[in-house]
C-alpha cells in the first residue's frame, strides 16, 4: 500500500512540452550555445545544471535577484515590529521593574534586532520560494535526472521550423544529445 503511494508520488507526471532540449557535457560549449541562441532571439531559454557556472550566468546576462527587496521589507518590518511590540506592552500594562524606565530602549534593542533578523530571514525565504517558483509541481521542461549529476541542459521553447534551426545550432555547439519535443 505504502509502496504504491510512494510509486505514484515518484512517477513523473505526463506533461506536454514543445521545444528543443540539448544536453551538454562541457560548460564552454553550453555557454557558447546560449550566447548564440540569445543572439538569434531565443531569450526565453532555460539552462539546467547541477551547479551554477559563471560562464553560463554571463552568457545568460541575468540581472541580480530581486529577492533582496523582499528581504529588506521583511527586515524593516521586523525591526519596527519588535520595538512596537515592546513599547505597546509596557504602555498597555505599565509595571515598574527595578526602578527602570517603562520604555527602556536598551533592552528593547535586543528584541528589535532579533525580530529584524527573524522576519528578514522569513521574508528572504518567502521571496526565494516565490521568485524561484518553488515548490514546483508542474515542470516547465522535460527534466533529465542527469541534470543533478553532471550534465547541463538547455531548453529552448519553440515549434516547427524554429525547432529544426535550434536543433542544428545546438548540435553545432557540441551538444551530446538533442531532442525535439512537440
Amino acid at each position, binding site marked *: 500500500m505504502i509502496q504504491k503511494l510512494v510509486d505514484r508520488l515518484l512517477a513523473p507526471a505526463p506533461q506536454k512540452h514543445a521545444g528543443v532540449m540539448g544536453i551538454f557535457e562541457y560548460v564552454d560549449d553550453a555557454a557558447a550555445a546560449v550566447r548564440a541562441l540569445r543572439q538569434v532571439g531565443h531569450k526565453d531559454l532555460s539552462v539546467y545544471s547541477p551547479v551554477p557556472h559563471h560562464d553560463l550566468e554571463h552568457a545568460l546576462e541575468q540581472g541580480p535577484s530581486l529577492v533582496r527587496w523582499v528581504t529588506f521589507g521583511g527586515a524593516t518590518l521586523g525591526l519596527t515590529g519588535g520595538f512596537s511590540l515592546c513599547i505597546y506592552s509596557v504602555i498597555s*500594562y505599565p509595571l*515598574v521593574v*527595578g*526602578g527602570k524606565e*517603562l520604555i527602556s530602549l536598551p533592552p528593547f534593542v535586543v528584541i528589535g534586532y532579533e525580530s529584524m533578523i527573524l522576519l528578514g530571514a522569513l521574508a528572504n525565504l518567502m521571496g526565494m520560494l516565490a521568485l524561484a517558483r518553488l515548490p514546483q509541481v508542474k515542470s516547465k521542461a522535460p527534466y533529465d535526472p542527469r541534470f543533478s549529476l553532471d550534465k547541463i541542459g538547455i531548453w529552448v521553447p519553440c515549434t516547427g521550423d524554429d525547432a529544426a534551426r535550434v536543433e542544428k545550432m545546438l548540435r553545432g555547439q557540441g551538444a551530446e544529445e538533442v531532442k525535439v519535443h512537440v
Partner: protein
Amino acid sequence: MQPATQKLPMFDAKAPGETLLALARSAGLKRAWPESWMDYLKARWKPLHQRMGRGKDFETFWRESVQKGGVWEEIASPAVRWGATPAFAPAEPKGQGSATLVLYPSPAFYDGRGANKSWLQELPDPTTKAVWGSWVEIHPETAAGLGVAMGDGVKVETEAGSVVLPAYLYPGIRKDTVAIPLGQGHTAYGRYAKDRGVNALALLPQAQDSASGAVAYLSARAKLTKVAAAPELVMTQRDKNQHERGMARVIPLAELAPGGTPADINLPRAHAPGEGSGEKGHIELPSQHKLGKYTEPRLMQEGEKTPAHAVTAFVPEETVRGPRQIPVSQGSYKHAQHRWAMAIDLHSCTGCSACVVACYAENNIPTVGPEQVKRGREMAWIRIERYEEKLAAPSGTQAAANDVRFVPMMCQHCTSAPCETVCPVYATYHNPEGLNAQIYNRCVGTRYCSNNCPYKVRAFNFFDYAAPEKETFAFPEPLNWQLNPDVTVRSRGVMEKCTMCVQRILEGKGNARDEERPLKDGDIQTACQQSCPTQAITFGDLLDPESRVAKLSRAQRAYWALDELNTGPGVTYLKELELPAGSGS
C-alpha cells in the same frame, strides 16, 4: 470551665473535666458519676450557694458567678516572716572527665516541651544555627587537642552514661567546659520529636539540687573522646564570619554622642543621602542616592483626590486599583498614598528568632526537614544572620573577645530591585506602595530572581510542600488547621519571599476605610514586628512624617545592607552601639 464546654466540631476534644469523668467510668470505678462535668461543678457549688448566695435561687447565683468569673470573700491576710537566708551550696560536678558538663535549656524547646513542633525543629539555634538535632559545644582549642573538627563525632561520657554527638566548635565557651542543649532525644511524643537528637539528661547522675529540689544540672564532669561516626550536624549558616562585607555594623557610642550619653540614640543624621533635591512635595526614600522617576513617594497636593488604585481590596471591582486603570501619562506610581518600609534596630536584636517562627506561622511557610535543610532549601522568609567579630584584645594578655552581632535579613524591598528586572514573566514587580510584589500564579520558576538577589532572601518551592498525596507534604493533620486563610499556600516550582505581611497591610487599610479614618502609625504590624520581644523591628509608612519608621530611617545610626550595590533597600538597619570597654555590656 469557661469558655468552651462543647465538643469541638473537627476534633474529638473534651474539656479536661469530661476527660476525667470518662477515664473514671472506663476504669471501672464504681460510683454514681455525674452525667457531665457541668453537673458535677454545679453540684460542688451548691454549698457555696448556701453560704454566699442567700436570697437568690441557684440558677441566678450560678449565672452571676459565671458572668463575674467567680465569687470572692475576704479573708484575713496571714502574717509572713522571713526565715534565715538560705545557704546555697556551690555546685560540685562529680566525675573523672576533663570538662565540666553544662546542660542548658534550648531556646526553641526549653526543656523539650516544644520538640514535636516542626517550626521549632527547623528554627536555627541562635548560637550554632543548627537544626533538627543535637550537638555538643566545645572550645576550638579543646577540640584541637582531641583531633576533632567541626561536625566530627564526640563521645561524651559521664558516670551516668554516654552519648555520641557532633561537635560544634565555639570560641565563646570556656576551654574546660562543654555544653549540650536540652530538649531533644524523645523516644515518643510525636512524629517530629521521636528519635531525633540526643537526650542529654541521660548524662546526669540521679541527683537533686539540695536547695530547690530541681534536677542538679551542673553536677557532672564529662570525658570526651573522638569517634568516627556521628549524627549529622545540619546548619543553616556555617560561616559566622562577615568577611568584611559590612552586613552587621557598629557605631562607637563616642561617635554618636561625643562627651557622654546621648538623649536619644535615634538622633537624626545631619544630611540624608538624596536630600536637598528640592522638588516640592517629594519625600526622599532614605536609602536612595538619586530620585527615581517612578518610585519616589510623593505627598498629596492640595485638592488632589485619592485615586482609585490607592485604596483597598474592598473597593468594588469597577474602580479597582491596578496599573491599567491609570494611564501612563498620569504616572501610575506617583499617586501612591503609602510607602511601606521597615527599620530594624540591631542594638535591640537579641537573636532570639521569635520573628522567624512568627513568619512561618503567619505566611504558611512549609518546613522541609533536615535532609533538605542540609541542601540549603529551608523556606524561611526571614533569617537571623549571626556574625562573630573578633574585637581587638583589650590588654595584651587576654584573648580577643568575640563580638556577636545578629542581623535579621528578609526581603529588602529594594527600590531598584535587581530581582524584578530579570523575571521574564513579570512575576515580581514593584507595586505603587513600595513593596516588591511576588505573584505566585505568574511564576514559572526560572529562579533568575534569586540569582540576582544579592541578599539571597528568596525561597524556592523545590518540592510540592502543599500536596497531601506527596511525601513532602508539610502540613499533615492537624497542621493544616493552622494555615492562615489570608495567605496562599504555594505549589511546587514557585518562588516566594517576605511580602511585609501584605495581607495585614490590606486588612489595616480595609479597617481604616470601613471606619472612615486615615491609617495611623501602628495600625498595621507585620508578624515579625508583633512577635519581637525587644521591639527591634519597626514597620510603617515613610510618607507619614510622624511615623516611627520615618524617624528611624533618618537616624544617624542608620545604614543599609550592601548599599554599594545601589539597590535602594526599603529596610533600614540601625547600627549596634559599641559601648566603651568595661561598661559591662
